[in-house]
């Protein structure tokens, strides 16, 4: 047998050369994890020794504290309650947040950015997520924790919480505001108001459709998404933006409801 074919004389190479960019988990990864874990343990132990967890007065079902705040991680949702009814702010929007989060991998067709940090290659995805997470979620939590006081009024961090502070809130529904501003009295009626509201909402979401028809053919990403995925992305995006839009409408024009449907017990 030729030497090169003799199994006992085969070239042997170290196994580590087959995957040169790999290192042993033990010790390298485990060591790093151990150190980080150790620091975390020391940190939380010192924190727990120095700062006591709060314990207020015993539960009293007859006396509600003012303000009555949900746990801090839900304060974003509680803040939304100012602008939307409970069914929307407390059920529909949180459910859409969860469903929307779950759908992210299926609507993100951009192959770039897997396994490393980048903004340039994933501008839309990163901007959307940061807007939703940092601006809406985190920022609203900060507002709820630090800036909301008795009666859910605004208080600057240095201001004293006055439980008797009264802020005149003359809210007006959108149909009324439009009727008053533009003299369109036919909008004052309940049915017309509802139709007007529904029409506006329809028009709002149809912006997504319009965009698709306008830019769809030319845009590579939209082509890759396809109509169904694009529809989901557009719906989630527009719903997410509905929150700041409603907030701005409330702050500037004191708008309360866009659309009132008392027959089924819901107002948007």
């Amino acid at each position, binding site marked *: 047998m030729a030497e090169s074919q003799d199994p006992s004389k085969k070239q042997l190479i170290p196994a580590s050369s087959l*995957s040169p*960019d*790999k*290192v*042993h*988990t*033990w010790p*390298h*990864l*485990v060591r*790093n*994890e151990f150190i*980080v*874990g150790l620091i*975390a*343990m020391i940190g*939380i132990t010192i*924190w*727990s*020794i120095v*700062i*006591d*967890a*709060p*314990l*207020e007065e*015993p*539960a*009293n*079902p007859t006396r509600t*504290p003012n303000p*009555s*705040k*949900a*746990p*801090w*991680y*839900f304060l974003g*949702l509680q803040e939304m309650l100012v602008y939307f009814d*409970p*069914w929307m702010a407390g*059920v*529909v929007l949180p459910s859409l947040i969860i469903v929307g989060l*779950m759908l*992210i*991998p299926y609507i*993100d067709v951009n192959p*770039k*950015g*897997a*396994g*490393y*940090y*980048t903004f340039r290659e994933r501008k839309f*995805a*990163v901007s959307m*997520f940061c807007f939703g997470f940092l601006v809406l979620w985190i920022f609203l939590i900060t507002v709820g924790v630090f800036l909301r006081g008795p009666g859910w009024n605004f208080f600057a961090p240095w201001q004293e919480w006055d439980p008797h502070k009264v802020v005149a809130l003359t809210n007006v529904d959108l149909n009324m505001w439009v009727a008053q501003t533009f003299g369109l009295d036919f909008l004052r009626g309940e049915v017309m108001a509802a139709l007007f509201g529904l029409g506006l909402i329809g028009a709002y979401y149809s912006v997504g459709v319009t965009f698709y028809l306008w830019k769809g053919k030319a845009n590579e990403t939209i082509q890759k998404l396809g109509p169904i995925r694009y529809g989901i992305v557009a719906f989630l995006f527009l719903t997410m933006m509905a929150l700041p839009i409603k907030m701005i409408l409330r702050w500037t024009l004191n708008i309360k409801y866009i659309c009132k449907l008392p027959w*089924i*017990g*819901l107002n948007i």
Partner: protein
Amino acid sequence: MNLIQLKAKYEEIRKLVVESYVWKSIFRHGYKDTPRNRILMTASNVFLHLHPSKIRRHGIKISYTWCAGGLTFLFFLILTVTGVILMFYYRPVAEYAFIDMKYLQFDVPFGMIMRNMHRWAAHGMVILVMLHMFRVFMTGSYKPPREFNWIVGVLLLVLTFLLSFTGYLLPWDQLSIWAVTVGTNMARATPLLGNEGPLAEQMRNLTGLITPRYDARSLLTAGTIVGAPTLLRFYVLHCIFIPIVAAVLMIVHFWRVRKDGGISGPL
């Protein structure tokens, strides 16, 4: 005898122990730092074999993952240990809950630090799970083939919030019941399932259900008010039900990390 002799004696005893039959039956490989042992440390250890024996170099960089996921799990373990310790003294009964909190804090040795650690680790875990989600998004580690694991992660996020929320009620102080009142009141606004939500009237006409006694909210509060039954229900949810579900999902989550190709990285 001087230190050198002491050390020699120590070496002698050590040799006797680590070469004994009993020792070798427990610790099956040596501690010498050989490549074989390095592999075995991972592959033959019940806890560590969650990890692959070898890992890509960028995966061990703390500035890649920030250990956010690992720390979330560490905090979950801290919460389990401190939680079990607290269970030795806490009674989930409206009459006793608050008193037991005071008892734990002042009459039980180390009770204060255990309670504090439990509370702060809970907040820490919520923050860390959100940071972990942020990191996974920023490194695109939900892209194929890791889509399903992202979904499991979102479920774990929801479960973390629910664990924190159910635990919030247990001290039974003013903060507890009113925070939970605010939270559970949202449930009665659920469309179709809440007695004050949209279409509730229609549901009542159709099914006779969705009254204040039978709706999504009273399912949570075990009654029409946040009271003693709510406390017991939240206690069981907090200590048994949700942790078991979360543990199962964590098993799936960690398994999928390996199955989907280990820690994500540039191709």
